[in-house]
């Protein structure tokens, strides 16, 4: 399990449930590595601000993470972490490699509305 304070998605089923139960979801699929940790840290900070978004992580090397690794939106990705944004269960955006807080909030505001605190 990843050592973050985010909700951990551990299986295919948990992934499906998360998308079903939440309108706006951001999942960071990575390892405890240099490019991933800063993204988890930003997500942990944003949890309190973007109460309209569910923030979660998933271990890149777990077999069930193919639900993210094999997404068509992630084709061509070659940098950890893979971050996927879902609205009503549909992928609205995916990014590869480290992203700054500004880059992340721009995506959240664009796709999920900036009605955060």
């Amino acid at each position, binding site marked *: 399990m990843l050592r973050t304070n985010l909700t951990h998605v551990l299986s295919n089923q948990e992934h499906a449930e998360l998308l079903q139960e939440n309108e706006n979801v951001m999942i960071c699929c990575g390892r405890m590595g240099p490019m*991933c940790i800063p993204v988890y840290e930003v997500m942990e900070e944003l949890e309190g601000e973007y109460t309209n978004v569910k923030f979660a992580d998933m271990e890149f090397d777990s077999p069930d993470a193919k639900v993210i690794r094999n997404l068509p939106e992630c084709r061509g990705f*070659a*940098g950890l972490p893979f971050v996927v944004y879902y609205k009503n269960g549909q992928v609205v955006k995916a990014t*590869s*490699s480290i992203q*700054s807080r500004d880059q992340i909030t721009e995506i959240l505001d664009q796709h999920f509305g900036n009605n955060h605190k």
Partner: protein
Amino acid sequence: MNNHYDIIVIGGGAAGLTAGIYLSRAKVSTLILNEGAVGGQMVLTHEIANYPGIENISGYELARNMKTQAQKFGCVIKSNIKITGLKLNGELKEITINNKDTFTSHAVIVATGGKPRAVGVPGEEIFKGKGISYCATCDGDFFTDKEIIVVGGGNSALEEAVSLTKYASKVTIVHQFDHFQALEHYVAEAKSNPKINFVMESKIIEFMGDESLRKVRIENRATNEISEMNVNGVFIFIGYVPNTAKFEGMIDLNEYKEIIVDKNLATNIPGVYAAGDSIVKRYRQVTTAVADGTIAALSASEYVNNLKKELVTV
């Protein structure tokens, strides 16, 4: 919210966190403002094996320990912020973050470190994470049995090129000069590796591809000849640049944009000190950043104490 502190530290890497530990432990009220993730370059380091007293630790853990230690002494840390206003002259320093909150202090320590140097040519932003990487340990396994390029000629470039041969079928080192800056044993190890070959006196002038990187255009600096090479990945290790752009025109910088300091790590502005990789120095390591953080903290707190005494006697 109390927005006044004795000292504000800009940057929460090894230098800034050390300053935070020393200052807060001495009951000097301290705020650390950090633009990215706390820990700075330590977070980018998978394993640190040369920090005295700790045989082996991940950079992330060392950073987390330093952060917790500073917070336990009462240091306030704000991460992932953006400094949008800066007034360093005068006895009261003012720093605004996110165009919203303004903080004041008697002294400031600049510990903004450095960031990886980019090649700075077309396509680099587009293919970041889609073939272009700055971290071999993070992304090496995406290039298993593929052909890649490593850009650079220093220790990191040659060391990482050798480590990437674990995954890649072929590694081409592209370097702008006809000789390497790396230590001899790194060069020898790379030269003796059958998977590594060299394109010297050359630089990448464009990254090209579709949904991921497919090829690069390379210019030979001696002949000006331009060629194309098909590759799946490019790893860039061409050094670091100091994060000092914000201070240009305020704090004196040298020709490499490093902050000029005296032996107490004071800058040209009274009450403004600097520490770590952003200052003029030869060896950039966690140990030297930690040492700088200590010196800057002690110098800055002495400055603040004297200032407070003056204010009382006036």
